[in-house]
């Protein structure tokens, strides 16, 4: 049996009938981008469940192939390391999302609800949505337990001071496509504008590139 790297990095096909064909390397690269964006964006980004599912499929495919290799095979170690690395990517990505969901749970659920009302694309996966709702309930229950010594306290104060991400925080980014006229810090009035050329790298406040990140025109680094 001679399993080469190419066999493992088999071409896989997207489940959707979009006819999108990705090689394994392209898929992993995509996962990396998704992960880095999520890692550095202050807010939660639209989920990438398709990518995650593909990558997970890829992992189990690779692992199945690995099992057929004898444990003494030198290549096995390297492939195993690669699988571990990919699994780390996915796990880290999902962990970052969970942490944001927990920290900004009220904010995220509210925005998600509004997106639903506007019939826009949702940011959370179904499982994440469930997790968030449950998390919010448990938190409220805990707070309720802590303040029920006096029924009817104005303890809802915390809900009017919602914990939200700092959209003004600065991010490093790299332009993937040319974008002209990026308004720098829309929260100020002095309409300063920057043009991004392909491959250029910048530090900007996140709120000036929010949409570009979500569209995939720029990549956070």
């Amino acid at each position, binding site marked *: 049996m001679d399993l080469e790297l190419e066999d493992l990095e088999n071409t896989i096909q997207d489940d959707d009938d979009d006819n999108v064909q990705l090689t394994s390397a392209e898929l992993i690269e995509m996962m990396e981008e998704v992960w880095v964006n999520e890692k550095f964006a202050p807010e939660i980004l639209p989920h990438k469940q398709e990518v995650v599912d593909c990558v997970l499929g890829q992992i189990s495919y690779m692992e199945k192939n690995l099992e057929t290799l004898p*444990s003494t095979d030198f290549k096995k170690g390297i492939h195993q390391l690669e699988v571990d690395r990919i699994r780390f990517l996915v796990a880290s990505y999902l962990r970052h999302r969970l942490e944001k969901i927990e920290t900004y749970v009220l904010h995220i659920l509210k925005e998600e609800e509004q997106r639903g009302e506007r019939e826009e694309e949702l940011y959370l996966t179904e499982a994440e949505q469930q997790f968030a709702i449950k998390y919010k309930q448990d938190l409220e229950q805990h707070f309720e337990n802590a303040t029920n010594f006096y029924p009817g306290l104005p303890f809802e104060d915390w809900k009017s001071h919602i914990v939200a991400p700092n959209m003004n925080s600065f991010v490093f980014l790299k332009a993937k496509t040319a974008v002209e006229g990026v308004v720098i810090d829309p929260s100020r009035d002095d309409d300063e504008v920057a043009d991004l050329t392909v491959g250029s790298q910048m530090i900007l406040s996140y709120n000036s590139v929010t949409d570009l990140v979500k569209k995939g025109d720029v990549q956070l680094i």
Partner: protein
Amino acid sequence: MYVENLKLDFYEFLTGKRILLMVHYDIDSICACKILQNLLKYKEILYTLAVIRGVEDLKRSYRENSNDVKYFVLINCGGTVNLVDLFEPEEDAIFFIIDSHRPTHLDNIYSDGQVRLLWTSEEDLEVPDFHAVYRDDSDEESDEEPESGDEDEGRAAKKRRLNEEAILKRRERRLWEAKRFDIIAEYSQYTYYNKASAIAMFKLAWFLNKDDKDLLWLAIVALTEQYILGKIENSQYVLAVGELQSHSNRLRNRSNDTDGLTSLRITYENDLKLVLYRHWSVESSLKYSMFTACKLKLWSHRGSKKLYELLADMGLPLSQSQQAFESMDLQLRKEFHQSIEKLSEKYNLEDLVFTSFVLQYGYRNKYCASDIVYAMFAILESSPKETPEECFNSALDCLTRNKKDVVQKAIERAKIITKTIFKTVQAAIDMKQIITAGNFVYYIIQEGCLDWYMFSNQYILLLLAQFILRAYVSMSRNRKAPDLPLIISAPKNLDLGTCVILGIPPLRQNSPKNNLGRAFEEAAENINYEVLSDYFDTSYFEINIKDRTRFFDALTALFDK
């Protein structure tokens, strides 16, 4: 059984298997183990490491792991004992041994595959022929059985004939056994050491093309330990240094690592028999080192005067000689070797210089091989509070480049030990505690002694013993002094009331071959003393303190014979 092809029958054989590394508690073993660990990592061989201080540890660790592990690698332990007797192992358990203790147990050499020795038959000296020590008894037994059937033939006659035959046979057998006893006695009369196991492991790494400077350094440290403890002959040392030097040249040429911060340089350099002088002051190092102390009798008032004379002759101002070597004037520091060497004849300090290696990495880290050896002694043997496993771990750290603080701390401790050894010798001389008992000399460290703990350990005790014997010989008016062995005893375990006894051969013998272990055994036998010794090196012996006098009397009687 000797393993012929280490690569095939040891290294690759173990691939994919789980092993137990049983590592003796000494510097060579730690170095060898570290090299082996490196090699195992290439093949991703899973291992568990057990620290072995004596026969008991060996048995216990086998018992604890034998259910889960089938392959055992023993470093510097087990070679001199009958492993199969000791463990009574399952048939599928296999033991690989790399051990510098000699003589190797004959049952291990002639094992049919369960015990596998990782060295060549040339490295075991004067091994008796197989048939001289083993004979196939199965034939005899069937011979001795009376043949059934022929009842008509005069039974009595036959019986007589058989009896005669049997008597002859038995006689022959007795003779053979007596001879066998003599052969084995001769084979095992001396305790001595083969070259460092770490060197053997390094050679394996080289053979596998996985050697590098870090591994070479480990082999160097192990060799230096053997030299400092006098475990091997000088000629063996010189040969091994030459060998390692050619490896260091080869590896230097191979590397293209020129970055000052990360590169590692091993240079072949002369070292002085002055303990830790690069990390100490010249005065202290001269004063407390065995070599200079014994040559100049530095424990005496006259000796100290001589020391200051020497320093003056070297042109080394007192203030300079008393500060840390590192902060001495550059010029003086550079000329230090030369100026002391020039005076070596005048002060009877020939042989002060020996060849060794220096390790350098980064901009500021420079260590002699001997520095590291002393540091490791300090780690392994000077802290009564830490468990052996903890000490073992720190000793491994001491060999890791990025744990500079561990080395530094250990060096400080090593200085204290060196000083303590000197002061103990000084006190022993002043109070005339080194006693001649006919044909040997002995010295006993009393239980009340402040630093007894240090001397309850193998190697610090050995350093002290060598110091004492040399000091004794240099002071003694007895012409026979250089021909007398030294027996030294120190408390080992106060709770159990046991003490350790160590014998070292006479100075004039000028060889580390040690037959005192045999003497201990005989003496114990003569007084019907049940031996509880746990050491692999038989020149160490363990008895109850209350039996010590009796034991020494028996020894005296034995030596007078």
